[in-house]
């Protein structure tokens, strides 16, 4: 008796199933006592491992040694104290300015990611999510001609789990871009492409997939174009699609 659910229990407990599968398995556990008992056992093992695995403590002297090693600064004589004090003050000021600058950057980034998530959700909620409906990249790409001030390459999807659903023109911060929808298993993934220069936002050069409000998002910049890949698929799938796009962008 091999339960198809039993195979997913560990991934479930690691919190690595897609939200849809999580939901289904939650529902299944309410009805299947075998699986529920199995989950209980595994949770116990997990807990025991977590406690038992934190076993070795470093010696305090060793910690001190490493701390000194990485904070190593040349010694200075006492008459320079004032010079150092003012340098420290200047550094603190600079650090303050930098950190607030960094905070602003981060919140601007976060805002962009929320906007991307909004675009993704509102499009999927629409009755007509795409304006060009085709699984053929040779149909979808030319459709954007004359609609966008740039062009891009779409990956060959044969032999992959992904299918192209179609595309539409979209806007982010008054900049036109391409919105493509792909499907992997039952998940729809949006790919957004904009001109980096027109977007004029400080974003990660090349991010790994990150979770935000249950969406996984990955972004990067390639040949002047800014790509976003977002969806509720697993981060593995998001990354796979990102790799396909990156490879196509380079060719």
């Amino acid at each position, binding site marked *: 008796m*091999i339960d198809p659910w*039993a*195979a*997913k*229990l*560990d*991934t479930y407990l*690691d919190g*690595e199933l897609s939200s849809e599968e999580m939901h289904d398995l939650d529902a299944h556990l309410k009805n299947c006592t075998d699986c529920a008992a*199995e989950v209980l*056992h*595994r949770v*116990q*093992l*997990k807990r*025991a*491992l*977590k*406690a*038992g*695995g*934190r*076993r*070795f*403590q*470093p*010696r305090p002297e*060793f*910690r001190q*040694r*490493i*701390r000194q*090693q*990485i*904070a*190593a*600064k040349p010694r200075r004589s006492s008459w320079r104290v004032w010079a150092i004090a003012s340098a420290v003050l200047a550094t603190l000021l600079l650090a303050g300015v930098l950190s607030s600058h960094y905070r602003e950057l981060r919140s601007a980034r976060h805002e962009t990611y929320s906007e991307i998530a909004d675009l993704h959700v509102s499009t999927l909620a629409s009755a007509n999510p795409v304006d060009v409906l085709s699984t053929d990249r040779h149909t979808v790409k030319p459709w954007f001609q004359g609609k966008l001030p740039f062009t891009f390459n779409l990956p060959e999807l044969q032999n992959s789990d992904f299918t192209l659903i179609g595309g539409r023109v979209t806007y982010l911060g008054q900049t036109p871009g391409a919105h493509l929808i792909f499907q992997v298993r039952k998940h729809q993934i949006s790919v957004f492409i904009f001109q980096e220069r027109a977007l004029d936002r400080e974003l*990660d*050069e*090349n*991010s*790994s*997939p990150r979770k935000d409000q249950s969406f996984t998002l990955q972004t990067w910049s390639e040949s002047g174009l800014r790509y976003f890949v977002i969806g509720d698929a697993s*981060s*593995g799938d998001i*990354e796979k699609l990102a790799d396909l796009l990156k490879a196509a962008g380079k060719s």
Partner: protein
Amino acid sequence: MTAATFEELAMPLFDQLYNFAHWLTRDPSEAEDLVQETYTKALRGFPSFQPGSNFRAWMYRILRNTFLTSRTGLAASATVPLDEEDDTSMPVAVGTPETLLIERAHEELLQGALGELPLPYREVILLNEVEEMSYQEIAETLSIPIGTVMSRLSRARKALREILLKKLKRK
């Protein structure tokens, strides 16, 4: 980036890295050498660290690569041939050793079993269960695809259960 930033990022990881190093080397003084070398290399390589990428995975990767090129690491990694097609099917439990582990007295037993696991299994279990890394982070740390993380993890869990069962029967 200044040295202060490196210290701020790296020192909070000190205890975990030491614990991990101890599990890999299974010897306190070798663990100290390994951690020291890791911090030296990381400090040197810090200017090339990509801000925004995962610092923790980066540190663990340095530690692990340093370990693998050490004498103990070479010996440990040479002993186990890994069978790794990317099937992610989980083995069905052979028994339920877990229930017995609720008792605190069995903690030693579990630690013993963890120590007996072949290196590739031990490290993936530690990263997942103790460090609570996501599959993505583990993939970055071990420089392997996510599919391999999943299949290795499921094999590691199976191996751990088998060792535990054996130990419990012997008792």
